[in-house]
């Protein structure tokens, strides 16, 4: 820790020289706008006229009764099932099925399973819009080819099906990530724990419950928080696939912010939605940072 000390002849503020360029750009283009968003959320403003009127917490109070906002929040929560719960279950099931044997060629599978993570959500959305297309989409075409004409649907156009359809795209994006995370974690579990359990007569399920799960605590934390945040932040995918429709059946908070601010000129309201959204994401992020610092401390 010596190096943290000042060197002879060095100014007390020498370190600031290194920080200032990055810090200034950050303060001007990220931090100041965050504060402005919060301030704007206490005003009523159409975005162009000069009269902004201070209305205190009124935007937040109206959120509580705003059917669009509640619908959007509910849809984000529903997306947690598709982005987080299902991929984690798939990942855990797969990791325990595959066990801790080292598979030759795993790098190839890992690269493929990870692929959706690096693609632009716009590309993912365009691809799945084609797959879900009622007329020439592969999904309905496949069903017809199998003689299951009755099962064909307007996947993204139906009020009840649009949300799970978009959600399942999230599952497609996230499950490989969860699998890889858990498989990597499994490699760390000491073999003798399983051997001891075997001797005690624990069956596979109990081994999973009492050895695998507790040992994967850190990975589970990372997976939960990463995927939940992804579910809370959905924007690009909804913009490309459904624009929140039909009706508001796939509306999410991110899209509501965009629509209210840039299409309906309800700036104060949009800022309030953005603030609530950020606070939720924040609380979850703080959780992951604490978790990470704890696991780092263990190593």
């Amino acid at each position: 820790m010596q190096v943290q000390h000042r060197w002879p002849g060095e100014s007390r503020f020498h370190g600031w020289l290194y920080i200032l360029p990055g810090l200034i750009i950050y303060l001007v283009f990220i931090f100041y706008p965050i504060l402005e968003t919060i301030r704007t959320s206490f005003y009523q403003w159409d975005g162009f006229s000069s009269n902004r009127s201070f209305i205190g917490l009124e935007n937040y109070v109206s959120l509580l009764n705003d059917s669009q906002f509640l619908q959007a929040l509910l849809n984000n929560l529903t997306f947690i099932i598709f982005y987080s719960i299902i991929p984690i279950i798939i990942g855990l099931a797969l990791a325990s099925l595959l066990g801790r044997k080292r598979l030759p060629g795993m790098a190839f599978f890992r690269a493929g399973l990870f692929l959706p993570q690096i693609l632009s959500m716009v590309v993912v959305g365009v691809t799945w819009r084609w797959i879900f297309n009622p007329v020439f989409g592969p999904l309905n075409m496949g069903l017809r080819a199998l003689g299951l004409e009755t099962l064909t649907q307007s996947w993204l156009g139906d009020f009840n099906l649009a949300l799970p359809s978009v959600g399942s795209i999230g599952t497609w994006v996230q499950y490989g990530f969860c699998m890889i995370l858990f498989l990597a974690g499994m490699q760390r579990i000491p073999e003798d724990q399983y051997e001891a359990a075997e001797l005690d007569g624990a069956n596979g399920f109990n081994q999973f419950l009492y050895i695998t799960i507790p040992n994967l605590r850190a990975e589970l934390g990372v997976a939960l928080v990463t995927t939940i945040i992804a579910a809370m932040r959905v924007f690009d995918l909804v913009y490309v696939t459904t624009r929140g429709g039909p009706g508001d059946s796939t509306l999410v908070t991110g899209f509501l912010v965009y629509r209210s601010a840039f299409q309906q000129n309800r700036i104060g309201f949009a800022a309030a939605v953005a603030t609530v959204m950020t606070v939720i994401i924040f609380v979850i992020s703080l959780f992951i940072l604490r978790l990470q610092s704890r696991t780092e401390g263990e190593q």
Partner: protein
Amino acid sequence: MSRKAWTRLIPNYLILSLFLLIIILPIIGLVLSAFKTDTEIIKGPFALPEQWTLDTFENAWTTGRFNYFFRNSVLVTVVVVIVSVFLSTLTGYAFGLLPVPGRKVLFPLLLLGYMVPFEAVIIPLYHFMDTLHLTDTYWALILPQVGLSVSFGTLWMSSFFRNAPKELVDAAAIDGCNRWQVLWRILWPLSRPAVLTLVVLVFMWTWNEFLLALVMVQKETMRTLPVGLAFFQGRYSANIPLMAAGSLIVAGPILLVYILFQRYFIRGMLGGSIKG
């Protein structure tokens, strides 16, 4: 490995292959579609095109103006990556190895940006840029992205510098290196893995960024690839070959970088970088 050991692994490979196929098949279908004609599309996603031509790509590239989008995306991404990684190295070095008065306030202040979504900044940012007449310019796409990337980059690089071998730094100091020389002559050559991970992550986030470019740019020729593709879909959503070709132009460069630097992507993202 013995033959018996291999046989025991077969179920594992089957399971993995099944889940890999679910991911890969849509992408294969997309690639094939880009080479097909409109009428070939209805023959099924995995029917091979009769003629492998690049006509559709050319169509997207010129008529669809993907040449402009591509140029914009490359320019913005290259500048953001270079500037962000350079600035993050400086801030990370300072927070990792230098005395910084006020670090208890400054470090968490910077990390805040690592956690916020663009939705939290976009509304005032737009009006701010509008007042400065910077909308529809590269500045509006580059500066906020740098701000956000420096936030994560500081966290990433400072943890690298904190764990750097102190003896080397001390030895260099005794040899008369100043702080700047210690950074670039001694530590920078060692930081390759950390820097490469940061490069690929910032590259990916910038290349795929959507909301910022959607809001800041009105002029068609200033759009980046993801925004260009989204508008393209609004117009040609029934023309699957064209949409597929456009998608591949957007995904191509990131795929290339992914193939080359796959290790760094996965390491960075499993490390719990929660953006994206």
